């Protein structure tokens, strides 16, 4: 598994090639790229703050959980922080497996986890000033579908 939390942009093509290079037992590579949306929402830029160390630590646990659920070959996760503009890449998740069902399910599982558990916070810049983005109920509900052991506790903190 490779997990990077970084300021710099990344190259999805290079990551995808690296994950499957020289492997003849990997039939499926499922991947996800998250991009900054802007314009329509009036967002001119955003700054991603994070909790260094906690993401990496939590990702190790969630990857173990994914491996218990599905037969995976490899996992790559990259999450950027810092100031980003609309259209910029924020996050990359790729999963390789012998079969596509496992690759798709594990990739979506990891993306849901990143959205709902990884300690990142978005500060949006708009014409009216900057504001911290509120968490979406929808994201929490999606993550709860998986009933993960490492859930972000709700309510009573």
């Amino acid at each position: 598994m490779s997990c990077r939390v970084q300021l710099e942009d990344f190259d999805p093509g290079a990551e995808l090639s690296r994950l499957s290079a020289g492997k003849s037992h990997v039939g499926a590579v499922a991947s996800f790229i998250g991009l900054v949306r802007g314009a329509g929402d009036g967002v001119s830029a955003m700054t991603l703050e994070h909790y260094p160390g906690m993401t990496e630590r939590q990702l190790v646990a969630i990857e173990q959980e994914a491996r218990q659920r599905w037969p995976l070959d490899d996992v790559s996760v990259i999450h950027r922080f810092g100031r980003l503009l609309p259209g910029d890449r924020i996050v990359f998740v790729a999963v390789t497996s012998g079969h596509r069902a496992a690759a798709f399910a594990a990739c979506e599982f990891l993306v849901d986890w990143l959205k709902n558990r990884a300690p990142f916070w978005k500060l949006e810049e708009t014409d009216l000033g900057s504001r911290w983005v509120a968490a979406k109920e929808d994201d929490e509900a999606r993550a709860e579908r998986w009933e993960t052991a490492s859930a972000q506790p709700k309510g009573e903190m």
Partner: protein
Amino acid sequence: MKVLYFAWLRGKVGTGEEELFPPPEVKTLGDLVGWLRTRSPGHAQALADTSLIRAAVNQDYARLDHPLSASDEVAFFPPVTGG
């Protein structure tokens, strides 16, 4: 004990990180929240409603009844919005 604040909590508290020495009666995360609220109006405001915030102890999510020790790293933050 290292206490970290992220996103809007950091703004209200006025710092992202402080090294603190809570009194012995602070045994759980809930006790710590109560004690922190007495430190400044900013702390009180940031930690006023625990339903709006999340916490981690040693980089794992934790609930209010989580026990604490002097060497712990504790963090308070809003629900996450990454990805």
